Each structure stands twice: as structure tokens, then as C-alpha cells.
């Protein structure tokens, strides 16, 4: 299982990369493995507000639907529309397949660093 050292992580298994005030959000390798083959994704629209700890969409596999939980609060600046036609990218390249980009970011205090996240996964795995 891959964990990228310089990213931040939410307990609900999303990763966050913050650059120049923009937070890019995706799901982790652990999350995609637990979900199984992702078949569909429900995305928010640019301009929507997201709140840390609350759902901003969902991902569907054959056997489950899971909420996508926002790791930070802010306003959606962009969504990765490519995922609508190719949701399998979440499985094949979880850290490359970003889901949303968030601006006016707040509420990032609860995020974990890679070491703490690895410990969390070990506990849950």
C-alpha cells in the first residue's frame, strides 16, 4: 500500500495537497483498495461549498457506495471531470486522480501527516 510522504491525510482516507492556497483532494490507496473497483463517482460543482468532515459526493463500487468526506472546508474551485468517464483511475492511480480542488481553505487542523496516517491504516487494516 502506498502512502506519499509529503501529503496530508484525513482520517476518512482522503489525501490533501496544498499549494498556493489551493487544496487538491483525492482518495488514498488504502481507500481505493477497501472500496474495490470503482464504477461511478458523484461530483460536486465548481462554486459549491465543502465543509471539513462532511460529504461532498460519493463513489460507487459494485458492492458499496461510500461518501466522499471533505478533509478541509472551502469553496470548490475545480472538479476532475475526467473521472466521470473513467472512474477506474481512482483505482489505478489514486494519488494522480485528484477529485476536487478547493480554495479559501480552512479547518485543516485535524489532518494527519504521512506517519500518523500509516499508523491509522495499520490499525484499521
Amino acid at each position, binding site marked *: 500500500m502506498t502512502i506519499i510522504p509529503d501529503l496530508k491525510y484525513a482520517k476518512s482516507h482522503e489525501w490533501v495537497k496544498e499549494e498556493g492556497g489551493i487544496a487538491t483532494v483525492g482518495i488514498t490507496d488504502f481507500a481505493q483498495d477497501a472500496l474495490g473497483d470503482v*464504477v*461511478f463517482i*458523484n461530483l460536486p460543482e465548481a462554486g459549491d461549498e465543502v465543509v471539513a468532515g462532511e460529504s461532498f459526493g460519493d463513489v*460507487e*463500487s*459494485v*458492492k*458499496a*457506495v461510500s461518501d466522499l468526506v471533505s478533509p478541509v472546508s472551502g469553496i470548490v474551485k475545480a472538479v476532475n471531470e475526467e473521472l466521470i468517464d473513467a472512474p477506474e483511475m481512482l483505482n489505478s492511480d489514486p494519488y494522480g486522480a485528484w477529485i476536487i480542488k478547493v480554495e479559501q481553505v480552512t479547518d485543516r487542523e485535524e489532518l494527519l501527516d504521512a506517519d500518523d496516517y500509516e499508523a491509522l491504516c495499520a490499525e484499521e487494516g
Partner: protein
Amino acid sequence: MGSYVPGTLSERQQMLKAIGMEREDALYADVPAQMLLTEPLNIPSGMSELEVRSKMEAIAAENKVFQTVLRGAGAYDHYIPSIVKYIPNKEEFLTAYTPYQAEMSQGILQSIFEYQTMICQLTGMDVSNASVYDGATAAAEAAAMCRDRKRSVTLVSAALHPDAINTIRTYCYGANAEMRIVPCKDGKTDLAALKEMLTPDVASFVLQQPNFFGQLEDAKAIGEAVHEAKAMFVLSCDPLSLAILPTPKELGADVMVGEGQCLGLPIAWGGPYLGIMATTEKHMRKLPGRIVGETHDDAGNKAYVLSLQAREQHIRREKASSNICSNEALCALTAGLYMATMGPEGMREAARQTTAKAHYLQSELCKLPGVSMKYAGEFYQEFVTVMPKREAVLAALEEAGILGGLPLGENEILWCATEKNTKAELDRAVAIVKEVLAK
């Protein structure tokens, strides 16, 4: 008494012994003694098959079967071809469960896939589910699938079937959502009133075509008004009429619903019927109920499966869009079989003859002094007349083995005809009406 338990007494004894019990009572050891019934149930003793047959036949004989039915209002007495009655009784179709085990259920899955395809062809929509309970629940489920956090109000036309309105009202009550009724004008939905009622909290508008009074609505213009207000347009159609009338797709529907009884199912005092639901590709994942999809097996052979199951209650539990599990699969199979048996020309002919007979009945009735039409608009299969002596008219028809139209408001009767009614039957009915009115 009757029984379907195969075990003989000695076999049951052997089986009890095998599980280490002496008496059958021990099987219920977990039930607290104070709750166990000590007296037999207060119902009659069981009967042999022959006795049950006599009893049930006697009960059935207490119902009056009308040779001529001129009443519709949600249940339509169309001709059912012989093979359409016969095939659904094949034991495999009858006794199988929901096809969750695709490897031994390809026949049922394919029959549903074929049904879905036929519904799409008939309606012009992109995707149909495998059925819901009936037309009224289909409308209520459609209203539910259109609601979201921002838009929660359902508008319904006052010319929707009263049972459908009440069912939607009930589903809305459950969901703590609001339903509002858009009034009618001259037997049709009042477009001006609708436009005023299309506020930003409205999720959808539900229209019936032809409507409860038989009238053909200006569905296209209504759909445009609904879309202008960014609400969804739910259109409830008589599926057989779609063989000749504009499709829901052509009328701009986002969700098509309908009562599928007219596709080969008997009127049967109200059920089982068939709830048809179809939508556009955009809303596919919001559609409730089962959907069969085509895929391939591990050797690359074509295969059918229950697909998109992640929408459903057994996976999504309290987050599912609907709780539906059992549906009307055998009725869907029957409807598919009916459409295949009729074929495109047979469907068109049944719809054309239905229209012709209804208009013949209407023109003959309206030739009688004192009989007039309540509404002036075009109709398909049903129409409302106003005439004096309504009760006497209906009683005289009943006496002659004819189920007349449905009494509505004062002196109003909602008449219906189908391709099944011959000219002779219709003439006879009109003659009886004439005689009563002349008295």
C-alpha cells in the same frame, strides 16, 4: 386437511432423533412458555384440494363478470392474446426468486432486459427499470427521485388519477416533503396556474397523458414551462396509447411513468399490475428498483446481471433512494410478451381501434337528447358526459350485463372503450341509455 409437507410420521421421527430430540415441542424451547399458543388457531379446519376448489369457485361466482366493460379510470379491459395468458404460467418463471444468482437465472434476466428495451422503444426514453408496483407508486417514486436538498416540493396536476395523487401525497408525507395540486381548467391542467406555482423550491411536476378525464394535455408546452423553471417533468402515460401518440421523449419528459396493466394483464379487481418507470441517461443512477445490464462472463460470453445495485436498499440501507425489493417481475415479463406478440403493427392497431371505438361511443351517446360532453378537448380512450338520470342509466346497463362508465361529479359519467368492444356491443349500450332517457 391439506398439507404440502412431504415427511411421513416415521421420517419425522427419524429426523427428530437425528437432532437429538424426542418430541416436536422441543423445537420451540426458545419461545417463552407464557407466549406459546395452547389452543388451536380459531380458523376452519384444512380441506382437500377438491373441497377448496368448490369453496373458491363459489366465492368467485359471487362476483359479477360483465360481458361488456365501458369503465376504465385506471384499469382497462383490453384483449389479452391467448399466448400471453399461457406463457407466464410456465413453472420456472412462476416459482423462481429474484435473479441474484445470474449463473442460473439468465432466462429471467434476459426477459427483463428485453422488457426494458421494449419500454425504451415504446417511450423513447434511454433506460427503464425492471418495474415497480403499479402506476401510482411509479409516479410517487418518480417524484421522490426528483427531490433534492434545494428542491423538495412536488407539483401534481389535479387531472392525475386520484389514487396516484393520494399515493404521491402519502409518499411525500413519509418524506416530510410537500405536494401541491395544480388546478384544472376545462378538464385540463391550467398552464397559467402551473407557471405561477413553479417556484424555485419545486422539484418536479407530475402530469398524466391522457389525463384522468381522458383529455389529451398540451404536454409539450407544459414540459417547456416546467423546464424553464428548472424543475423536472414527470409524465404518466398509458403505454398502449404511445404506439400512436407522441412519446414522452418527444414531449420532453425527464421521467416517464405509467400503469402497465393495459399491456396484457387482466383488470383483476386492481392487481397485480405493473409500474413502468423510465428516464434519461442523465438520471439513470437515480432510478429506483432493479435494472438488468448486459456484460460478459469470465470466458467472454454475453451475460446479463442485476446491475447498478449500489443504488439499492440491500447495499445502501438508509441512504437508498427507495426501499423497493420485490417488484412485479412476472407482470413485466407478461408486458414484454404482450408487446412482442402484438408487434409494432398490432400495438398500433389496438391503439387505433381503441381510439375509434371510444369516439364512436362518444358520438352515438351525444346524439341522444340530454347528453352532452363535459369537456371540449381531444381525447384518446375516455371522455366525460353529462346526462340526467345517471343512476337509472347505469343500473339499466348493469342489468343488461354492461358495466357503464364511472360516475364522477353531478350527472357526470367517465366512459371508456377499448378495441375489445364491438360496434354491436356499443350500439346495444347506447340503445339502453336512449331507452332510459326516453322514459
